[in-house]
């Protein structure tokens, strides 16, 4: 039985967060009426000239810096020629030779907690194409509709080395780039709206062979789950082809999530000859040091560095630290709670536990959490000063989530304050002991399990508000017959 090795490289198109398009002053907002955000330049009308958006360049430079890549002081825009109705000019302005971002690296954390370094070959600026709508009713049938609002939207295409060896590694890398582009504020990364699109180059080879097998390119991967499933399907398909005596054909394939399969896109087969050449409408992009320094001056602490710092400074394990640095908002939230409580471990437990579960249930981002960092800190302070027990704290958290105010307001309104006054606890415990003489004699005869019964009775009587440590202490004393 032949052992196969999977080789995967990803091309990720991430939409840059600019207000206007990369070569025109038309807006980039999502969801506008068709063709209301497509101006003469986006439509490729005769006589127009593209002028490069400074912000798109600035955002690309930030990405380059974040992956430790060389920023090209001189880069060139090229025309990628192909014909499709949603590409009015007949070419896409992209970069081919001399892209703006050179080689870099990112680290991914695998399931077994090992860290793997994945190479980024390059990242280049380009414009997006428009959108084709296929609707049989259009024009009475036989037509496709074209919306050019997306045409000219700035994209950064991030090309990886063929360094991934499994679908899971490919997903980990895609997630890493997704985390990074949002972290440094260059893209909203919204996959439903097409702001983060992934193409996968997949091949297989006998384990131990150094030459790569023939690869196929899978398009249309717009969720992390689809990336994993599509690559998994494609790997199995290629192995079946080879083991069945056939050869893998280099081609573009489309992933169909409904059937969970990839299939050949015949229309793209002949289009691989893009005849790139430098765009005569655009001069070489030359960046001076001041521009680059300015672009990266306010780069935040990067996710890997922050994860490492959470590990060292806050004493968190790799798992907690990596969860808490999933997004910058989440990391900021956590540190705000730590700053207000001085309790990193407890803060991590609450943020990764109750809060994460509640966010998940409500399907909202941390920025929309009805429980702010200050509110969670307030709750943790009431646990620390023993106003409430950990168990009642969950009840308080739920009330805060439902909008019942901050921790102190909820504790007051629901009367949840823990009873720590022994003047209140002692008579309660004495009454319970007096009401259960049988259990008392069992306990005194050495049946220590009965102790749990008394604790239960006290908790029931106090509606869960008695301080458990004090209950234990007073019960032991009273059951032993001491005053």
């Amino acid at each position, binding site marked *: 039985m032949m052992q196969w090795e999977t080789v995967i490289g990803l091309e990720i198109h991430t939409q840059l967060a*600019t*207000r*206007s398009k990369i070569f*025109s*002053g*038309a*807006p980039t907002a999502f969801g506008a*009426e*068709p*063709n*209301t*955000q*497509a*101006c*003469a*330049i986006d*439509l490729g*009308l005769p006589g127009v000239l593209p*002028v*490069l*958006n*400074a*912000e*798109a*360049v600035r955002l690309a430079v930030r990405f380059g810096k974040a992956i430790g890549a060389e920023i090209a002081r*001189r880069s*060139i*825009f090229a025309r990628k*020629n192909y*014909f*499709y*109705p949603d590409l009015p000019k007949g070419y896409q302005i992209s970069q081919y030779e*001399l892209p703006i971002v050179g080689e870099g690296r990112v680290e991914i954390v695998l399931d077994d907690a090992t860290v793997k370094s994945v190479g980024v070959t390059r990242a280049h600026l380009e414009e997006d194409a428009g959108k*084709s*709508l*296929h609707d049989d009713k*259009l*024009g009475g049938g*036989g*037509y*496709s*509709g*074209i*919306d*050019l609002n997306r045409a000219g939207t700035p994209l950064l295409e991030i090309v990886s080395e063929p360094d991934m060896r499994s679908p899971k590694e490919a997903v980990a890398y895609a997630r890493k780039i997704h985390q990074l582009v949002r972290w440094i504020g260059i893209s909203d990364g919204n996959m439903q709206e097409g702001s983060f699109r992934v193409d996968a180059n997949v091949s297989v080879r006998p384990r131990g062979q150094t030459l790569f097998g023939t690869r196929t390119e899978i398009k249309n991967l717009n969720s992390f789950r689809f990336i994993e499933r599509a690559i998994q399907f494609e790997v199995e398909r290629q192995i079946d082809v080879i083991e069945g005596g056939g050869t893998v054909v280099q081609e573009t394939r*489309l992933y169909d999530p409904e059937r969970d399969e990839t299939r050949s*896109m015949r*229309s*793209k087969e*002949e289009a691989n*000859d893009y*005849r790139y050449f*430098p765009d*005569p409408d*655009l*001069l*070489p*992009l*030359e960046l001076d040091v001041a521009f680059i320094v300015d672009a990266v001056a306010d780069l935040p602490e990067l996710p890997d560095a922050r994860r490492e710092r959470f590990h060292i400074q806050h004493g968190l394990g790799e798992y907690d630290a990596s969860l808490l640095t999933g997004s910058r908002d989440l990391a900021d939230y956590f540190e705000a709670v730590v700053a207000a409580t001085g309790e990193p471990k407890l803060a991590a437990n609450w943020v990764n536990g109750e809060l994460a579960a509640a966010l998940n249930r409500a399907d909202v981002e941390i920025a929309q959490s009805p429980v702010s960092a200050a509110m969670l800190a307030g709750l943790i302070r009431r646990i620390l000063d023993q106003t409430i027990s950990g168990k009642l704290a969950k009840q308080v958290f739920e009330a805060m989530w439902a909008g019942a105010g901050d921790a102190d307001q909820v504790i007051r309104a629901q009367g949840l304050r823990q009873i720590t006054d022994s003047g209140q606890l002692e008579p309660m415990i004495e009454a319970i002991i007096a009401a259960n003489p049988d259990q008392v004699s069992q306990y005194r005869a050495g049946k220590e399990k009965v102790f749990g019964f008394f604790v239960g009775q006290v908790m029931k009587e106090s509606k869960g508000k008695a301080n458990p440590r004090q209950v234990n202490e007073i019960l032991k004393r009273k059951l032993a017959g001491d005053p």
Partner: protein
Amino acid sequence: MSLDASDIEKIAHLARLAVAPESIERYAADLSNILELVTRMDAVDTHAVEPMAHPLHMSQRLRPDRVTEPDRRTLLQANAPLTERGLYLVPKVID
């Protein structure tokens, strides 16, 4: 380097140019001559010359990220042979 008839057919197809069958041989000869000229220029030693991306010795000016183009859909679509619901209509494309 010289081009044959099948090269011409492929180039014409990629550029969506309708080249009459009787013209193919002439195009093949003309284009081969142009390539021949380029080959001759290859003989010049250009090691010390930086490749030129643009004939102008200038660099790209940048535009501030501001929305300056209002919606002119009605005007722009007046040029289009067919539109519906704000979409440009084209003969059906299938993938």
